[in-house]
């Protein structure tokens, strides 16, 4: 029984050539890492879908996760004493944006690995996010080629 994806009233589109669809072996896949230690992560993303997906991906790698949907909640959580090995934080967030939230989290002395995972792709945004304190600026989507080396480092496998 087919279940349709949520609908809209859209029309057809032309097809253009893509990348050939040939599945080349990726340098990293999810099964190239098995965590030896308990790692925790916080996902900060205002978009419900992205937040759930990033949590799901981290959980698939074996991390314990929490998530919040705005920068202010992230700062409050850290201020309350919560500690994480990894924070994924988007740039454009409700209430308090990711750049300012990152700045405040770092100002509290939190030295965990922070990945700025955002749909922003400009150099100006990248520099601003790095200056605020993220360790890596990642244009969405977050792929294993970035995540796996980070997890290996956090897990002491490097």
């Amino acid at each position: 029984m087919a279940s349709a994806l949520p609908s809209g009233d859209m029309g057809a589109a032309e097809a253009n050539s893509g990348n050939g669809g040939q599945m080349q072996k990726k340098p990293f896949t999810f099964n190239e890492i098995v965590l030896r230690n308990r790692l925790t992560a916080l996902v900060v993303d205002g978009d419900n879908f992205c937040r759930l997906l990033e949590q799901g991906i981290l959980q698939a790698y074996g991390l314990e996760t929490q998530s919040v949907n705005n920068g202010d909640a992230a700062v409050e959580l850290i201020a309350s004493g919560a500690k994480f090995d990894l924070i994924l934080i988007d740039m454009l967030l409700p209430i308090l944006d990711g750049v300012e939230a990152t700045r405040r989290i770092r100002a509290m002395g939190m030295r965990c690995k922070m990945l700025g995972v955002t749909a922003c792709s400009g150099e100006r945004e990248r520099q601003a996010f790095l200056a605020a304190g993220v360790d890596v600026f990642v244009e969405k989507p977050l792929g294993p080629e970035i995540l796996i080396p980070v997890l290996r480092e956090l897990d002491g496998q490097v």
Partner: protein
Amino acid sequence: MERNPMRRQLQTLRKSLFDQGYLDDQFVQLEELQDDANPNFVEEVVTLYYRDSGRIILNIEQALERKPFDFNKLDAYMHQFKGSSSSIGAKKVKAESTLFREYCRSRNGEGCMRTFQQLKKEYATLRRKLEAYFQLARQAGPVETACRPK
């Protein structure tokens, strides 16, 4: 070489989604997270995407009906939409999202409207193609894969 004709058809359909530029490698990453414990993971993720992003599309449509355009708001909506779309590997949709944001930054209302129409077409086309793909995948049945280490 896949002997099951339905699975061959599925592989062909899947390949076409990449060949024609509808999907990129991020979709492959999602497939790799699918296992016996979560056999419908990709379809569930895509279903969630279309449910959530449909609301953003509506917000943008409503914002484009208000003059003068609030380009900052439009850009913020599209930023969110682009992030979601890139997370499922929706390549063409992501490309149109990027173009829309460029028009927002250059305060080009005509460009925004034109690009948004194209984006909706790509969005709808991808949805139809993925619906067909998942329907065929269900008919073809599960394929044996190596278990992901826990």
